[in-house]
């Protein structure tokens, strides 16, 4: 059976998401490797850059998803609030949640802990994905961007390297 991250990729492609842009994250590696195989991924140098490119594509009427680790999400707060939310540019964020496990690497523990609050504070509607609920949440995300709103989908890091 296909892992659910590759199903997510197929689902979004089927629903006219045309661009997948971001900075790699090990939590999302199945999603990213699958997209790379399909030659559908643009890897950028930083997350803000990915959001800028995705914004330009959305402005051209082409739906976009930006993927990143939550460390990169922390980098991106100003871009999300002063570009994506200010201009109401509909982007789906797919974010890997490092620091979800209490014993994840130390550099992730603070961001991992405050991530749900950060998302709430910047008023970015969010759903956390699992292998059981992914389809419903992805349908929700598609509806969001159809209504000109951005949103975030979170994938928990539930394993250690």
């Amino acid at each position, binding site marked *: 059976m296909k892992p659910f991250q590759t199903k997510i990729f197929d689902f979004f492609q089927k629903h006219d998401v045309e661009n997948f842009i971001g900075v790699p994250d090990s939590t999302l590696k199945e999603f990213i490797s699958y997209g790379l195989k399909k030659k559908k991924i643009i890897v950028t140098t930083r997350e803000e850059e990915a959001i800028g*490119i995705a914004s*330009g594509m959305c402005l051209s*009427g082409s739906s976009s998803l930006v993927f990143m680790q939550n460390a990169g999400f922390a980098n991106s707060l100003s871009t999300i609030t002063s570009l994506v939310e200010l201009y109401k540019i509909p982007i789906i964020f797919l974010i890997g949640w490092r620091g979800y496990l209490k014993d994840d690497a130390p550099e992730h523990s603070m961001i991992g802990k405050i991530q749900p609050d950060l998302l709430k504070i910047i008023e970015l509607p969010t759903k956390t994905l699992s292998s059981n609920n992914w389809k419903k949440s992805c349908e929700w995300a598609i509806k969001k961007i159809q209504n000109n709103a951005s949103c975030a989908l979170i994938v928990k890091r539930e394993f250690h390297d």
Partner: protein
Amino acid sequence: MIRKEVMKIVLDHIDSQPIISANGFISRDLFELKEKNSNFYMIGSMGLASSIGLGVALKNPRKRIYVFDGDGNILMNLGSLVTIGYMRPKNIIHIIFDNQSHESTGGQPTASNKIEISKFGKICNFKTFVVSNTKSLKNCLRQIKKINQSIMIVIKISKSNIQSQRVSLEPEFIKNRFMDSLNEKK
């Protein structure tokens, strides 16, 4: 030369083509000099004009996309040049108004007096030009019409005391009419 003066010369060579203009005084000058539907005025998100421009360029290969940037702005996002160089769009014209300072925040210095930004452009597959007078700028603007690759023009200017009015349009309005303008004549 000051920014508003050279921007006017650049704008004389642009009709309805899309312009992504960096936040701060650059967008303000553009707003005063040539207000049009196909201007995307950035208000926040400093550094990202060239990234937004790349996204628009990749999706609109038949249009030439102008990015109006500053030295402080591009120095915040040099990675953008790397990605543009990797993707190699033939329809992006990246204009950098280089006054060697963060003029919008009070004229603090950038490093562009010692680090030549055009060199980054060169290694990132741009056809690059550096101009420091109106004659060579006009020459360059004529030349680029025939060039079929990513283009970077660094225009060396001095700081100025002229301050244009703020962009008084709502961000969502700027977005919607910019999107409509891209749809026209596609």
